[in-house]
């Protein structure tokens, strides 16, 4: 990946009033996800009520930003043509320290990535929007 991700012309998030806090926090350099005050579980992606206990008791909290790479793929033929300029690039499933898993863009070299890698949150400009991505945790 040699292209500047900020210059890509790619689809961004389809945020709405419920999900906007997640994207706004990422823009501000923080990873925020929901936690249920009734059952104490963390929730991703954002919901109106808790998918674990169905209580109307979700609140936004700042997550640790730490995670583990559960799986990844080096993308050579993207599903959206706007991403072709960035190939090969890596997407992965990040198991957050809080429990939920999210899919994200992984800022690693395509030939230097493995399942189980420790990751940390890294806000990144993709296509002119600051998105919640992940990089290998500094050791």
């Amino acid at each position, binding site marked *: 990946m040699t292209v500047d991700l900020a210059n890509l012309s790619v689809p961004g*998030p389809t*945020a709405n009033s419920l999900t906007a806090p997640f994207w706004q926090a990422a823009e501000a350099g923080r990873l925020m996800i929901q936690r249920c005050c009734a059952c104490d579980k963390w929730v991703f*992606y954002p919901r109106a009520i808790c998918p674990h206990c169905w209580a109307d008791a979700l609140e936004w909290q700042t997550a640790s930003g730490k995670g583990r790479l559960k*799986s990844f793929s080096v993308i050579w*033929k993207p599903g959206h043509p706007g991403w072709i300029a960035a190939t090969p690039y890596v997407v992965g*499933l990040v198991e957050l320290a809080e429990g939920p898993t999210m899919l*994200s863009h992984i800022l690693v070299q395509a030939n230097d990535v493995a399942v189980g890698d420790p990751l940390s949150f890294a806000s990144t400009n993709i296509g002119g929007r600051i998105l919640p*991505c992940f990089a290998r945790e500094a050791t």
Partner: protein
Amino acid sequence: MRHLMPNVAISGIGELKPQRRTDGVNTMDLLLRVSAEAARDAGLRPSDIDGLLVGPQVGETPQHVPAAVAEYFGMQPTMANVVDLGGASGPGMIWRAAAAIAAGQCETVLCVLGNHRNPTEPRSPNRNPAREFDTPFGASGANTSYALLMQAHMAAYGCSAADYAQIAAGARANAQLNPMAIFHGKPADIEEILASPMVASPLHLLEIVMPVAGGEAVIVTTVDRALRGPHRPVELWGAGEKVTHRAVSQAPSLTSGPLKPAIARALGQAQLTIRDIDFLSLYDCYTIMVAATIEDAGLCAPGQFANWLRENGGMGPEARQPINTHGGQLGFGQPDLAGGMTHVVEAVRQLRGQAAGRQIRNCMSALVTGNGATMSEAVALVLGVQA
């Protein structure tokens, strides 16, 4: 043979030859054409059919799909519905038809799926969570999801790229026995598959189904009525269904899917074990899907699919438990949601003894699997014939 399902059978099948491209074809025409073939095969007139199950997004018709299809077909069914389970929709229709018959709502159900491949078809708007939380990171489409599933499986069990590629090679070999298959006349060995371009690692191009136009239709009716038809009734002995998630990030497991409980339920209803099954008709959108299904079916321990396949003698009609003798979708082509129904249609052919140059000897039972979205929508069927 004892089983726990209502006394229901498949009495008719129809299938269109896969096509890479159609120009200006109307989806309704494809569906009606293949449905007429299934009705002819069953020896039925249109007025004999009183139930209708169709898939979602039937080309031009985003809503009121069953009514629009019934009207186009000149039918006035007493049971009509959409089954929306992705690649599991076809098998999912079969037990729903049985349930509707058992409930006394109808006697004979047409189950039909198909789609065109017109080059200029507009895509539907999509605002689901996968669109919001996957696509912005460069992950869109099924290839990425199955690549993530395959990488996790490889990492967990240390399987090699060639282990998975043998599934695509086996599918291509079977396609050489089926003149309808899109890859008939085009075999591919493991080396050729591994030399094909990487699409989303670890998935190579030839480990991914080829999209085609086509259609599949099945008639489900009572065993009594099927016995009055021209063919040996193919009975539904068991069914299982399970839906666990939609986006791959929300999967409860990346290495085992909802087919595991679905297959267990279907075998339980049929009062059979997986070793009793003569033919495995396994949904194969990608090589990893077959690998995971062999393991989820309990044919071998997790991570052992490749050894099991070698001991099985491959996938062809002479194998111990043959797999996807029509070529699977990897060899036949994937006619949109009808791809899942190809596994039903091939099982019916094998159980009738009508599989021509690829007939399995003494084929009395079959396991059919359907799979949708990101290894998240699962249907399993056990079909069989009386001795």
